[in-house]
């Protein structure tokens, strides 16, 4: 029994320490992020100024990563005061009733061009599973996530379907991060 104890303990310590090496890195969202959106077939577009959340990600072990991020709907800026009011109104995103756009990842995997994250996007009170392709580049301060994806606003009951405004909303995201 005593002969087996020390080898077993050594294996256990090695295994545990190996897992600590591959544990995903916590990242803190840095200033200078950009959450932009545009609607196909129209001039409508803008940015969200407030973006918060937690990001856990490791290039070597993307599967252990976790994204839980929120966008403040009231922070929308289209560059036009009337348009801002319209986007925040109950006709569109209804910032009073649904103050956040929330994304929680379920899985992250490596792809040929970078990575992809699959998770639940909750917007305007509707939750749907989507996959977002993204890239991660290490920088001197930490890193930078970048990705773009399209959602169909009708699926989230945003605005009236059809009309002059296109259904596809393209979101372009660029998030610099620092190690936390």
């Amino acid at each position, binding site marked *: 029994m005593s002969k087996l104890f020390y080898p077993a303990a050594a294996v256990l310590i090695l295994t545990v320490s190996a897992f600590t090496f591959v544990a995903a890195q916590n990242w803190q969202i840095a200033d200078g992020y950009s959450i932009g959106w545009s609607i196909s077939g129209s*001039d409508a577009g*803008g*940015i969200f*100024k407030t973006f918060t959340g937690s990001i856990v990600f490791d290039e070597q072990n993307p599967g252990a990563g976790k994204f839980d991020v929120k966008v403040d709907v009231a922070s929308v*800026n*289209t*560059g*036009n*005061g*009337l*348009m*801002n*009011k319209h986007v925040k109104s109950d006709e569109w995103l209804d910032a009073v009733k649904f103050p956040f756009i929330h994304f929680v990842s379920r899985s992250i995997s490596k792809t040929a061009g970078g990575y992809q994250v699959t998770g639940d996007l909750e917007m305007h009170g509707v939750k749907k599973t989507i996959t977002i392709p993204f890239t991660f580049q290490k920088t001197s301060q930490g890193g930078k996530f970048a990705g773009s994806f399209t959602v169909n606003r009708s699926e989230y009951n945003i605005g009236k379907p059809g009309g002059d405004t296109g259904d596809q909303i393209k979101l372009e995201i660029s998030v610099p991060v620092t190690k936390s």
Partner: protein
Amino acid sequence: MLKKSLALGIVSGLLAGIAGIIYARVYYTINESDFSEVVSAVKIVAASVFGGVLAAIGYALLNKWLRNSGEIVFNLCFTLISFASLMAPIAVSLPRTIETPELFPGLVIPMHFFPALGWYTLKPIFIKFK
């Protein structure tokens, strides 16, 4: 006529520009919203002088074509065009780096009337009433 109206247009435009700069400073102090990225002092003066010169050309032409009613038609047109031009600052999309675009019309709309105000105020000095 063109010479006098051009002089009036330029002087009233310059004064409108100065009034615009003062108003922009006051507006910034009250609201703490900086629009200097899109509405600089040079742009305010240039736009006001442009409006004044355009008015001068319009005034000279209307008085040439409509000898009896040129003055009335010009005043009506100048006021209406000043009103119509308000659509521009209401509809414009500013750079998204500007935090408070909803305060932009409040800054620019009064400025759209400054050239007309300057013109109506200074006109008796430059062009004597017939």
